[in-house]
């Protein structure tokens, strides 16, 4: 009997040790650290049901919107739950995901993920993983992974399988552990904001798109996922969703085609009773300078970000009656810290731009330490 007891205990200890080892490695060491992981991880550290507006979309959103600035100007809380290269197939999952910890008054969906020329990103594991790898384990995560148009689903369920090779990057390993420990159970200060302090030349003339209703078809599977999401919203009586398009420099060629696809999307979305606002048409209203306020044709820099946030925040307040949030003292203090660090971030990026430095500053321990010392 004693032999069986010893044996059972030994097996259990081995299993526990192995599971613990894998879990700790997956959590702290073998994951991909970038602005997307910080942003998505950071969402779950926000106080439950404290976010008034959640934004979905791609890089246009984190580059063009500052939750800290919006809170400072209008008093409502918001969070950009966005990833680079987001895809239409993930929107429904993302909507369900944010409902697990938040109950926003408004969900603003930037539509870029519906406007790609083809469905290639659907199977691009780099982009899909930016979302899936950072979701906490839940029923929604399991469903999302099983529904991915991607073969190696088991590595999406257990990112360790994909990233275990990271052990070779020893300094990167240190940074990953450091950042995980730094952000453990702590809400992010910059609320997922990120930008590029360089500049890609503005070549070509912009097209006048005012009142242009030209349409181009959406990619097949993308349209399918869009309609699926709209049907989901309709059948669940979801009415707090609005579709928006952040301002771009629309030119001849691909960017015009994207604009035309946005017109198609507008028609589809409106046919389901949802609203769509294309802020490509409001560049002048925002006071955006197409030379100075963009770092490339699709993304605003921090100057443009501030103008866009001011405009969009007012839009939310006026159009959707997003009122000032009544936060408790502790939460209010945290958001005030966010405001403080947001302005420090603006100053820092301004200096980098003026010095001609090409950086991608996003929230991590080193950046916060830098901003703290300003």
């Amino acid at each position, binding site marked *: 009997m004693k032999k069986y007891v*010893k*044996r059972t205990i*030994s097996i259990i*200890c*081995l299993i526990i*040790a*192995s599971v613990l*080892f*894998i879990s700790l*490695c997956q959590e702290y060491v*073998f994951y991909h650290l970038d602005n997307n992981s910080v942003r998505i991880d950071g969402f779950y550290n926000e106080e439950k049901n404290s976010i008034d507006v959640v934004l979905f979309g791609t890089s246009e959103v984190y580059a063009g919107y500052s939750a800290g600035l919006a809170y400072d100007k209008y008093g409502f809380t918001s969070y950009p739950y966005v990833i680079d290269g987001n895809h239409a197939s993930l929107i429904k999952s993302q909507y369900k995901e944010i409902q697990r910890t938040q109950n926003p008054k408004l969900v603003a969906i930037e539509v870029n993920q519906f406007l790609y020329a083809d469905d290639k990103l659907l199977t691009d*594991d780099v982009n899909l993983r930016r979302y899936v790898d950072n979701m906490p384990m839940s029923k929604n995560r399991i469903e999302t992974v099983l529904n991915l148009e991607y073969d*190696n689903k*088991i*590595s999406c369920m257990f990112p*360790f*399988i*994909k990233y*275990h*090779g990271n*052990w*070779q990057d*020893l300094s990167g390993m240190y940074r990953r552990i450091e950042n995980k420990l730094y952000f453990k159970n702590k809400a992010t200060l910059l609320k997922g904001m990120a930008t590029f302090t360089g500049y890609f030349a503005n070549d070509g003339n912009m097209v006048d798109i005012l009142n242009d209703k030209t349409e181009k078809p959406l990619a097949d599977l993308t349209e399918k996922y869009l309609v699926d999401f709209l049907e989901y919203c309709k059948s669940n009586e979801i009415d707090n969703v609005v579709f928006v398009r952040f301002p771009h420099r629309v030119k001849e060629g691909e960017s015009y085609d994207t604009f035309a696809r946005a017109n198609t999307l507008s028609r589809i979305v409106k046919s389901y009773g949802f609203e769509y606002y294309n802020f490509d048409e409001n560049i002048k209203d925002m006071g955006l300078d197409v030379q100075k306020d963009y770092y490339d044709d699709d993304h605003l820099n921090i100057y443009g970000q501030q103008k866009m946030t001011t405009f969009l925040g007012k839009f939310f307040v006026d159009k959707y009656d997003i009122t000032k949030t009544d936060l408790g003292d502790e939460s209010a203090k945290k958001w005030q810290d966010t405001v403080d660090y947001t302005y420090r971030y603006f100053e820092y990026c301004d200096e980098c731009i003026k010095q001609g430095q090409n950086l991608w500053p996003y929230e991590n321990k080193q950046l916060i330490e830098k901003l703290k010392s300003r």
Partner: protein
Amino acid sequence: MNYTSLIFLTFIAVVALVYYTFPFKSYKWTVLLTASYVFYFFTGAKYAAFIILTTVTTYITAIILDKVSKNAKKQMKLNKEQWSKEEKKKFKKKTDINKRLIMTLCLVLNFGILAFLKYYNFFATSFFSLPTLKLFLPLGISFYTFQSMGYVVDVYRETVPAEKNIAKLALFVSFFPQIIQGPIGIYDSLATQLYTPHKFSYDNLSRGVRLMMWGYFKKLVIADRAVMFINSVTDDYISAGGGILLLTVLMYALQLYADFSGGIDITRGVAEIFGINLSENFKRPYFATTISDYWRRWHISLGEWFKSYLFYPVAMSGFFTKICKKIRTSKFGKTSAGVHISKVLPTSIASLVVFFMVGVWHGANWKYVAFGLWNGVIIMISTLLKPCFDYINVKLHIKTDNMAFQIFQMFRTFAIVLVGYVFDVAPDFSLAVHTFKNIFSFSGLTAFSKYSLSVLDFAVLFAGMIVIFVSSVIQEKNTDTDMREILSKRPVLNWVLMFLCIAATLVFGIYGPGYDAADFVYMQF
């Protein structure tokens, strides 16, 4: 179904669960048979026709041989009094001819299929100007053909009775853990184990799982890492300098051993979970002191197969018996050299024949023929010249039983083995020759950084090599005792090592998206 896939591990777990809960104890073997065919069909249903053909022809041949033998015995018994000695001898010879004919038909058919699929294109382009065909090699064809033909020969020799149940024979031919890369089983030792219902045993499960873990460590951490370097060199073989080529051959020695022995450990581990002990296929081959010793430690089951079914028939054939008799009765035969030659000539020539076939077995390429002949020639020369080497040792007062000499022998043998590996790793024969030229011209390390292994990867390889070396030394010193037996006496160390093995494989293993999972080397045979 790759051995290193999660599907395979799930498959094993399911099969084990079904096997041990199967209510009809005496038919438990049917679970293994079903699992074997499911495994085989996973690789492609079209390949299954070949293994079924081999199974059916093997079964029919064995039954006929068995019947002919039994009938002959019956006839002999019946006519024991009536027949003269001459008549009995004549009848026996006739029976033997008939049996041999039946056996040969089966061997020609099955080896013929193997030869055609494996060698047609090689012969078509090397010797004749024939068009090449798009041929495929069914999974494990070399292994199951050798295994089943060995059984046919055993039935012919009457060392085993024919299996009356075709389904049981099908299990012997197709047993899934060994189908990919052996070991080649002998019917006598394997069949009973397959058909006997085994009860669940924690010890079997524990031993099997530990052996599998060790196999996965060798395969995923060492073999698949080393092959990344080897492939990056062979992709641009011509531009690699001598130093790089030498390093490649050394890496190949490590990779081949880790890959093949790792795969065999997984195979044996899986079988052990079901209470089946497959024969060992490796016994620290790089500790061999002679080439003959090396081949008694490397791919042991292939060596045993060739020994039983080719070496002895050739060495003990009438042809060699006559030649040796002629030598012994000649003037030369009276000398000490003559006496020695008359004793060892059959085995020397038989070794050459065997290793020629070993080379051919490895693949349809002149480089494999060269590989086989290299080993065969070394063994032949060392056998024939043994008295000379013994004489030199005596004259030079070399103590052949001391450690220093044995270490010298190990290094010498390893160097000879490496020469054979040059033929293996080079894409073809001419590039193998180019490799020797480059290595011995000391043409430097070339741009080392262009080959796809980082310094840390080399560190892992080195550490892995040390681990294998240490465990090999322990086993060698403990005269073949299984490491698992040694560790079972140290339970804390045992569990710690198991955890470290799991952790090392998970962290350092070459698997997952972004890596091209390397097939087991011997799967191609």
